[in-house]
């Protein structure tokens, strides 16, 4: 899979194909060069001879910026989050990370009770400009290293949530997130990193995308229609954008044109783009890797059921992981993670030729 995501139309511009990891690293590097106040905190992110974090994103940054800006922490996720929040209050712009999103639960109190609420509790006098990066997604590491956690954070007022699906967006969103005055939880999908070399993920997509040399930002709160279509709307994020695109290609060969919307950020959420697409196609499937019950897709379905109900020609469906922990065995994991085939089947069910009996 390659640069479907090259959103910049001017193909004359200078740029190159990058992996997600390279794009994220470039974003960090550019922002650190631009603004002295940007610092990084995390486990194993700056050690000489080390990994550059769990997935190589920070490789080389301690060499360029020094250990006072790339801080290797103890295994102390709550303090990583709380120290980042304190440093943000004190005038810095920390970018902290957890090695696996699953560990966010350890930092949840600091993120949800402190970082998210301090502006509010201060009556609007303070702000907490921090970014917290977290890799998500099932990758045969079992139940404690494969969860998708976007919904938990979308539900916390005061936090912004980003979840890019490709290098172009990842770079542009991360730069914007770093400049944002608010705490941003930044989700990255392990199978999209596309890194080569030692830390390459088995089963990972070699997602590369064209990224311009010139600086650009992607705003938080703008979804992207990554494939236009008239018959049904597929709303997805992260890896599921790619599965939805695969499904759309298969469907197109059978004459069904799916419109694929990459939400890109969950907070703020670009409701208008989704609503307009649904009003046009009259059918909606939300695709997410998270467990079905209470996933972010539920919120999308709920808003559509409120704001677009008169335009719907079919039930609003969600394709998500079942309500189980992430299983280890690949054969089970493949069943757990939504597949392009499942999407295709669900679309065909909704885009029936018969008039809908339920309407």
């Amino acid at each position, binding site marked *: 899979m390659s640069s479907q995501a090259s959103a910049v139309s001017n193909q004359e511009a200078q740029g190159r194909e990058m992996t997600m990891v390279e794009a994220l690293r470039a974003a960090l590097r550019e922002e650190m060069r631009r603004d002295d106040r940007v610092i990084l905190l995390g486990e194993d992110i700056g050690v000489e001879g080390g990994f550059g974090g769990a997935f190589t994103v920070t490789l080389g940054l301690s060499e360029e910026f020094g250990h006072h800006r790339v801080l290797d922490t103890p295994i102390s996720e709550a303090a990583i989050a709380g120290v980042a929040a304190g440093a943000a209050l004190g005038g810095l712009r920390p970018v902290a990370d957890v090695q696996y999103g699953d560990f966010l639960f350890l930092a949840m109190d600091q993120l949800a009770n402190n970082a998210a609420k301090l502006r509010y509790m*201060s*009556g609007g006098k303070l702000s907490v400009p921090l970014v917290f990066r977290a890799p998500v997604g099932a990758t045969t590491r079992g139940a404690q290293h494969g969860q998708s956690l976007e919904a938990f954070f979308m539900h916390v007022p005061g936090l912004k949530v980003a979840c890019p699906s490709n290098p172009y967006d990842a770079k542009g969103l991360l730069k914007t997130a770093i400049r944002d005055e608010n705490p941003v939880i930044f989700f990255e999908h392990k199978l999209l990193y596309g890194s080569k070399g030692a830390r390459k993920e088995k089963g990972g997509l070699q997602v590369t995308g064209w990224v311009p040399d010139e600086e650009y930002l992607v705003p938080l709160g703008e979804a992207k229609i990554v494939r236009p279509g008239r018959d049904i709307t597929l709303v997805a994020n992260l890896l599921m954008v790619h599965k939805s695109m695969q499904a759309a290609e298969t469907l197109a060969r059978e004459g069904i044109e799916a419109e694929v919307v990459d939400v890109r950020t969950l907070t703020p959420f670009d409701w208008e783009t989704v609503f307009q697409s649904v009003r046009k196609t009259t059918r909606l499937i939300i695709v997410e890797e998270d467990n079905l019950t209470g996933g972010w897709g539920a919120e999308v379905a709920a808003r559509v059921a409120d704001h677009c109900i008169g335009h719907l020609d079919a039930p609003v469906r969600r394709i998500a992981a079942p309500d189980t922990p992430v299983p280890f065995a690949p054969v089970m994991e493949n069943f757990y993670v939504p597949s392009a085939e499942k999407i295709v089947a669900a679309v065909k069910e909704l885009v029936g030729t018969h008039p809908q009996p339920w309407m």
Partner: protein
Amino acid sequence: MAEAKLTPEQKLAMYHRMLLCRMFEERVYFLFLEGRLPGTIHQSQGQEASAVGICSALDAGDMITSTHRPHSHAIARGVSARSLMAELFAKETGCCRGKGGSMHVGDAGAGMLPAIAIVGGGLPLAAGYALAFRYLKQPNIVACFFGEGAANIGVFHEAVNMAAIWNLPVVFVCENNKYAASTAVEKVMRVKHVSERAAAYGIPGETVDGNDVEVVYQAMVKAGSRARAGDGPTLLELETYRFAGHSRSDPGHYRKPEEVAAWKERDPIARYEARLLAEKVLEPSEMTKIRASIELELETAIAQAEQDPSPKPEDCLTDVFAS
């Protein structure tokens, strides 16, 4: 290190500040019983020497963090009684514009972050703020207040350790008032002094009389200099006691009356008053004047707070995100 010499003015200022803390809390207690204040309160009568001793050793640019029991910290740090009272009255003019309430009072402009009411939750914020001070080459430090009950929560361990390995300019100030709500410290901790835990992080720990404002002040000057010099954090334990219940309407039956009485004998304000009178730093006539001026300040604060506008209901919707 030699002790810092306190001038008579400084001593008087500390006395005045402690009295303001006490009288503020007493007024708040009555306002609360009268039903004029919403919410809940955790009061700090008896702990004034710790709040004032610590804050008197701080510079203008320093920062403090506080807890669910923050009134005296705020006053000691110089947050105005007026803006505190208005916050307790849930008014637009409060230090948190009515959004915070008793458990979250603070005013970063005055050197105090909004108090964190989740026990221990302020410790990493303090360490992080100290990291920013150091990074930005500001000569300042953070004083981080917490109770002995907080010394059992995970983030205490993580934050003190992180501050220790990075030599951050923060002083961890544990107000050991012997109880966490109804729970006696010896039931939940096998060490006698919280400060013994400093060794686990390779930093100095010290336990001092938290009811002697000058002792507290001197200990904080020492720990503060260390922090300012780049030598890292100290775990400073102040032995003290709260005279009131844990929160509103707690009669405190889990404490023996003799224990309470013994600690009342060590009232930090009465003790200091006696000492200053003996030292002739304070005249009885001045005492009366100070009290009167504080009463006036509090009366004014209350009167103004009561007249101040309430937030509008829809104000609840603002201040979620900065733009």
